[in-house]
């Protein structure tokens, strides 16, 4: 059975459509990446999956008892908030120190348990968030632009870590990303989103798709694509251009 089945999902905010008729499945152990320009509804899609927004239409079906590990974009860590890594890890899960250390090791940061969260670099913080999401031995990891604030080598490292985690635990991974070419190489399937699904498939298929090239340009193999967002692009003549917000 699929871990996640999304059918005909439409999400609006105050009359503005963020997502329109999106359908997709996530199978076990696959890495699926969602790419798309700013305001293409990527975050809305993740929010609908974790139940943070109620869809106007359509449904999100989740396999009963599915264990989800969620890696947020960032934390609202006010400098006045003292908390150690170990304490953060134990916040939602009743776990012993051993499994806490194991998760940190899986995420590539075995030595940070005593550190204060506010003292971490952004790369370390992302890995701690990854470690936190691994605690419940999830069947699916969901990452919301987890590499924002990391430089290119940093993001590449982070994605290698994700791949390693997948190999070790064989969990599925669903992620949003801006780092197109890095992500492409790590994904089994890429979904190109712009309010609706423009195109999807294996990374090479998507790279070659005209819809994708229209959104991101053609030179995405070596360099990052520019985020030009042409509002007037259309695939078929019957559908009207969709207003999108993030």
């Amino acid at each position, binding site marked *: 059975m699929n871990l996640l089945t999304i059918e005909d999902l439409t999400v609006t905010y*105050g009359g503005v459509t963020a997502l329109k008729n999106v359908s997709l499945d996530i199978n076990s152990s696959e890495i699926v990446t969602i790419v798309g320009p700013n305001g293409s509804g990527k975050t809305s899609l993740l929010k609908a999956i974790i139940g943070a927004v109620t869809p106007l239409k359509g449904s999100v079906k989740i396999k009963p008892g599915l264990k989800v590990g*969620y890696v947020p974009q960032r*934390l609202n860590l*006010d400098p006045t*908030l*003292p908390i150690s890594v170990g304490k953060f890890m134990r*916040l939602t899960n009743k776990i012993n120190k051993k499994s806490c250390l194991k998760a940190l090791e899986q995420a590539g940061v075995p030595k940070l348990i005593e550190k204060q969260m506010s003292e971490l670099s952004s790369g370390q913080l992302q890995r701690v968030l990854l470690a936190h999401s691994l605690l419940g031995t999830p069947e699916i990891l*969901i990452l919301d632009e987890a590499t924002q604030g990391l430089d290119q080598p940093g993001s590449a490292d982070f994605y290698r870590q994700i791949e390693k985690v997948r190999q070790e635990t064989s969990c599925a991974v669903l992620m949003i990303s801006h780092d197109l070419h890095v992500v492409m190489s790590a994904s089994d399937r890429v979904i190109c989103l712009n309010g609706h699904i423009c195109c999807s498939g294996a990374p090479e298929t998507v790279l070659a798709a005209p819809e994708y090239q229209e959104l991101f340009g053609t030179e995405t193999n070596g360099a990052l694509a520019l985020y030009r967002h042409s509002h007037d692009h259309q695939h078929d003549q019957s559908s009207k251009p969709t207003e999108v917000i993030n």
Partner: protein
Amino acid sequence: MLDDFMTRAFLAGLGLALVSAPLGCFVVWRRMAYFGDATAHAAMLGVALSLATQTDVFFGALIFAIIMAWATTQLSGQNYAMDTLLGVFAHSFLAVGLVIVSFLSGVRIDLMAYLFGDILAVSENDLGIIWTGTLVVLGLIGWRWKPLFLSTLNEELSYASGFNPKREQLFLTIALGITVAVSIKVVGVLLITAMLIIPAAAARNLARDPEMMVLAAGLVSCISVTAGLRASYNFDTPPGPTIVCVALFIFMVLNLIKTIKKLAH
């Protein structure tokens, strides 16, 4: 023992110290300082209406503090930003309250007591209300501690863990409303935010752990209340402001120590 007005003042102050510590930490962590201030101002309308209808000011203040907190939480993000709405509600509630009071003869002096607090006038009945409120808020925060904390760190993470951050925000709002209502007689509307924020800010220098910060904030509050009341008795200064001055003094000393330590390294 409760006959003595100083004893009652101490007990009332300690109740306030205990309730403001955990709540103050959340206010600081969530950057809600203005929120607390606005809620306190809005409560004045409740006070005015209570005086007009001769009911207990505690309930009037409580109802309006919660109405205002709830309304801004619901309405923000649609047409106006949160702090704009807070400004609109807080100051107009306060203004309407003051206008209503001006129609009532003989309450002018009373109102000053609610702006600056009159801890020396606390009655046994007030003590009961203060401590009931304190225990309710402590219980509420203790019960919701983890989800509240998680939603402070990240809303989506909170959703993914099965807690609705909006619901947690509502709990916090209610706790804040109760705290404002409870503190109104003790330190007054103008100084409530000070008692929420200064001890929590001072405690940051003493803690490496969220729970520890709450305990440290409680300690700073208790010391401020005790020393502040003593000082106000000895020097014949207004008690509410004196308590806040002591809290400020502790805040500055702790920060000075921290700065010196940093320079020494």
